[in-house]
């Protein structure tokens, strides 16, 4: 069976190819590398569209046998990107992000948490700068076409080659390249988290969605800041913390150190990636609350461990074995 037609998705899913599209895809996908290139190009277009276009819409988020509906508004103008996410079920939890701040609002507990927003941290940046390395870990291919929320989409399947990462499917809008649906797949190819737009509006160059907070923030809200104005003086990382080996081929992408709110202690965050998936290791001084063991939330796994009088926590949207092996391999090597 040609690589193009291989499909591991369950029957009844997006596993068909309209006749008109087959020659088009075959023409550009004659070999496995070309096929991966094609799939990667679609993911690259999706990444660019999610960051560059102005849009608003409702989507559903499925995880842990729960279904939530959310509303997103996103635009980009001369000042940069701004994004607003609201939970439409129960409490109207909000996440507002601009170039400076990441603000989370919990109306029922009347709490506002403000953190520094990482520049360009909106929708993920996909930089396929090392396709050969990525192909060591994943098999990427086009599955076909599907219709989501009345939009025609191209389905891309990114399948892991080992047990250290999840698979993912993207349904990418054929016209504007926005992601209409994504599905995270576990080691048994089961869908563990899904996001799907149910309605979408894309704005032209001269218009944008109105982004405003729903609750009126007043003095009754507690403001929690996760950074200090002078934090720039306190971000020197401790390079003695290292991985003794790199499970699953993950490499360190970045490291930063920041003050823990309300304390004089620091937490160091080290981000590891394989080019698509990522996990973070947080290291801070051990406290009475520190625990050892595994935890999870939806597709996100975590593993906590005490080492050298510090609490080490690995968290990421990767299988449990990955966070465990990474956390276990962290050591402190003084220079």
């Amino acid at each position: 069976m040609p690589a193009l037609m291989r499909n591991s998705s369950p029957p009844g899913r997006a596993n068909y190819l309209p006749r008109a599209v087959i020659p088009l895809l075959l023409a550009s996908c004659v070999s496995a590398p070309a096929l991966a290139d094609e799939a990667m190009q679609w993911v690259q277009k999706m990444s660019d569209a999610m960051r560059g276009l102005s849009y608003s819409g409702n989507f559903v988020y499925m995880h842990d046998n729960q279904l939530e509906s959310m509303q997103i508004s996103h635009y980009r103008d001369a000042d940069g990107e701004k994004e607003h996410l609201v939970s439409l079920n129960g409490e109207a939890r909000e996440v507002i992000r601009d170039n400076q701040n990441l603000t989370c609002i919990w109306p029922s507990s009347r709490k506002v948490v403000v953190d520094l927003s990482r520049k360009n941290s909106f929708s993920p940046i996909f930089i396929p700068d090392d396709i050969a390395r990525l192909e060591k870990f994943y098999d990427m291919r086009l599955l076909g076409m599907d219709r989501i929320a009345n939009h025609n989409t191209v389905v891309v399947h990114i399948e892991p080659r080992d047990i250290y990462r999840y698979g993912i499917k993207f349904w990418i809008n054929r016209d504007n390249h926005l992601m209409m649906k994504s599905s995270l797949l576990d080691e048994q190819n089961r869908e563990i988290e899904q996001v799907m737009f149910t309605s979408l509006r894309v704005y032209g160059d001269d218009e944008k969605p109105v982004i405003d907070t729903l609750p009126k923030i007043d003095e009754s809200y507690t403001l929690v800041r996760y950074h200090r104005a002078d934090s720039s003086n306190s971000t020197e990382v401790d390079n003695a913390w290292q991985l003794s080996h790199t499970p699953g081929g993950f490499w360190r992408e970045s490291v930063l150190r920041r003050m823990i709110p309300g304390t004089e202690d620091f937490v160091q965050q080290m981000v590891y990636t394989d080019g698509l998936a990522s996990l973070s290791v947080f290291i801070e001084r051990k406290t009475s609350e520190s625990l050892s063991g595994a935890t999870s939330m939806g597709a996100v796994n975590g593993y906590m461990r005490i080492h050298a009088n510090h609490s080490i926590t690995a968290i990421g949207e990767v299988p449990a074995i990955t966070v465990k092996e990474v956390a276990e391999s962290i050591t402190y090597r003084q220079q």
Partner: protein
Amino acid sequence: MKERDEKLSYLLDDYADENTPGDLDEVIGDVNLQYRMRRYQMIGEVMRHELPPVIDTGFHAAVMARVAQEVGAAQERKPRAAFDSPAPTPLLSRGIFKPLAGLAVAASVAIVTVALWQPQNQDAGRPDAGLVAADQLKIQQLAEQKIAGSAVPVSTRVPTPGTRWKIDKESPALQQKLNAYLVNHTEYSNSVQGLIPQARVAGFDAQQ
């Protein structure tokens, strides 16, 4: 008015008793009451998630035809029933309102809801043009209503599960810490997962 509302509510809740025929006569003779009965039924359908995709605003005509049919049949049965069976027949519960059996609409809730739809003119026996127009307008408004950013309803009855970490030892402080870690992980990593990372953050448990 309140007594009549309660009677209607009981009628539709399958609590009809031997007074039912009299109540039915009142319904048949009062068009406004027919509209109110339709609203009660609509409330029940909403609560049971049985509302049809298209609301038939001419439903009352069909309802009344069925009511008349049931009343006729009941009147034919009534003399015989008086001899054969002393138990009263819950007329409405067997006819068109059978689907409403078991509907546990608290009378207070129903009345409060219906109060929002109260007609201005309570004259019985003839159609209330203002009421009909108001109904049509309201239904049209509801059908076209969009979720407004300034008016997001918040459920106070059902606790939302939100997102929680599965930890052997329950610890709010640890939940908070893990949430903060996840926010930072989402911010400082480049996982290519579409909107899922953002959705996770917005889905945090409200109580944490």
